[in-house]
């Protein structure tokens, strides 16, 4: 288990003190994939680097595997670090070593086994990350995704209990990102190790994380199971992150269309429906139209996404009814609510 207790960190920069982390309290359960999302400069790297003592908190306590990391130093700290693997945005491989030698590196540092045993272990890990056949390649001969696989194999070399990932997919294209994320998920399932993922992309959180914390200007502003946070984002910044992911890259288009429809059909109602889990597969909307035949519906935009805990979909629709039949619209909305579909009526002020 990992625990941050009242952790704050202030850097003494030339321009004066910089408060990077403020009063962070977090508990990360064993065996889970825990995501921390935030914009650039939010303090994500500072936070994750406290877990292996690359940074020390100014105040507060960081506990990893029952150890207060900030109190460790010298040999004790180095021993603790062997239990914590880390992967990096720019891979940070040793370019003078081959793939296999890079994976052997942490074993040499831990002075584990002899050359032969180290090599055997490294070969297993190279296979685990799907790089068999490239053992003798140099990092410069690998693609970004392959380099990160080497990074992952290297991070796992000393059988750590925890894997830290600082923007590990940020330098990769979307396709490769997904492959690397799949690998992390697979490793979490197979080896049961706790993974702490730092990212600025909600996509990463949705794909692999069980829990998420939102970091804004050094503070945790929201925290919870990923599906909950996707369903009910509380803070404005979380909504922005969730939208970044759930709207299909055409958020701006949707906004424009909604504006126009609101202007041209002042009597119509525009509603955002949110479905989760199995609801996404049920014919709820057509049932609604059957029950309220006076209501006209047009679809503006819709999409569906997969998370580790199930799917989540959203649909923007416009509902209209003849003069005098306005009550029907309310009835339709009530029906949706009874089907546990979340509805959010969008009016022009919100835009």
């Amino acid at each position, binding site marked *: 288990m990992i625990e941050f207790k009242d952790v704050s960190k202030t850097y003494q920069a030339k321009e004066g003190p910089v408060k990077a982390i403020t009063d962070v309290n977090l508990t990360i359960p064993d065996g889970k994939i825990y995501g921390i999302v935030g914009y650039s400069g939010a303090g994500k790297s500072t936070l994750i680097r406290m877990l*292996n003592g*690359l940074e020390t908190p100014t105040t507060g306590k960081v506990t990893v595997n029952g150890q207060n990391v900030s109190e460790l130093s010298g040999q004790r*700290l*180095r*021993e*603790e*670090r*062997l239990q*914590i693997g*880390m992967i*990096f945005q*720019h891979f*940070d*491989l*040793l*370019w*003078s*070593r081959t793939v296999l030698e890079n994976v052997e*590196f*942490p074993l*040499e*540092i*831990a002075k584990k086994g002899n050359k032969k045993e180290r090599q055997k272990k490294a070969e297993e890990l190279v296979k685990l990350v799907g790089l068999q056949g490239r053992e003798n390649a*140099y*990092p*410069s001969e690998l693609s970004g995704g392959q380099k990160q696989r080497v990074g992952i194999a*290297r991070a796992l070399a*000393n059988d750590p209990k925890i894997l830290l990932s600082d923007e590990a997919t940020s330098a990769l294209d979307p396709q490769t990102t997904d492959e690397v994320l799949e690998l992390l998920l697979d490793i979490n399932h197979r080896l049961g190790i706790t993974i702490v993922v730092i990212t600025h992309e909600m996509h990463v959180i949705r794909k692999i994380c069980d829990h998420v914390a939102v970091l804004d200007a050094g503070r945790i502003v929201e925290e919870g199971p990923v599906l909950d946070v996707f369903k009910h984002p509380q803070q404005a910044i979380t909504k922005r992150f969730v939208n970044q992911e759930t709207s299909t890259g055409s958020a701006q288009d949707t906004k424009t269309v909604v504006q126009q429809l609101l202007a041209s059909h002042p009597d119509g109602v525009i509603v955002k429906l949110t479905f989760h889990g199995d609801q996404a597969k049920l014919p709820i909307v057509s049932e609604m139209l059957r029950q309220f035949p006076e209501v006209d519906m047009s679809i503006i935009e819709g999409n569906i996404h997969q998370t580790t805990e199930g799917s989540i979909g959203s649909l923007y629709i416009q509902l209209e009814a003849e003069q005098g039949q306005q009550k029907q619209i309310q009835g339709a909305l009530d029906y949706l609510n009874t089907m546990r579909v979340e509805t959010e009526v969008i009016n022009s002020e919100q835009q």
Partner: protein
Amino acid sequence: MNNNSFASFFQFSNVNWPKMWEATWETIWMTVVSMILVAILGLILGLILFETRKRTSIWARIINWIVAALVNVFRSIPFIILIVLLLPATQAMVGTIIGPRAALPSLIISAAPFYARLVQIAFDDLDHGVIEAAKAMGATNWQIVTKVLIPESKPALVSGLTVTAISLIGYTAMAGAIGAGGLGNLAYLDGFQANNNAITMMATIIIVIIVFVFQFIGDYTVKRIDKR
């Protein structure tokens, strides 16, 4: 035979070959031995400069200041003056002030600071991320030096050593002029002072060849070890 015509430079029949080869050997010996010692000393000094520069402890600062001062001072003293300055020290250390061995102290003291700077630059140029990664894996400082800093900057260290070796060859010639032996000595005494131009010419040709060979070996090694 002692004229100054252009042709006199090519009357190689005037060359005493056994003496020429002996001088060549002395030049190579001085260069290689001082190069090895310069490599070791420069690596240590460069490492000290690199390691102490970013630290804030008072000791690190003092050491950094002293080493940086020494490096800068010895780097700025012209070589010919350094030899003269070091005559007493050379006498004390080597027991003589003539011959190839006597050239070593001044060769090393002038080239080591130069190489130390190149070493420091090579370490500075390394991606800081790799060092951090090693630290995150639990590496000791010594492991970082031997497994990260030196192997990862090897091409820069070797090309820096090549540059240093070539200036060392130049220095040996200068040292030769005041009695250290080698091709510089031969060209000066038997060539210039005895007015035997062919010897001067031949010594020059051999020095150029030695420089080329060093450059070639350096470039080839860098190319082979550079896996970036």
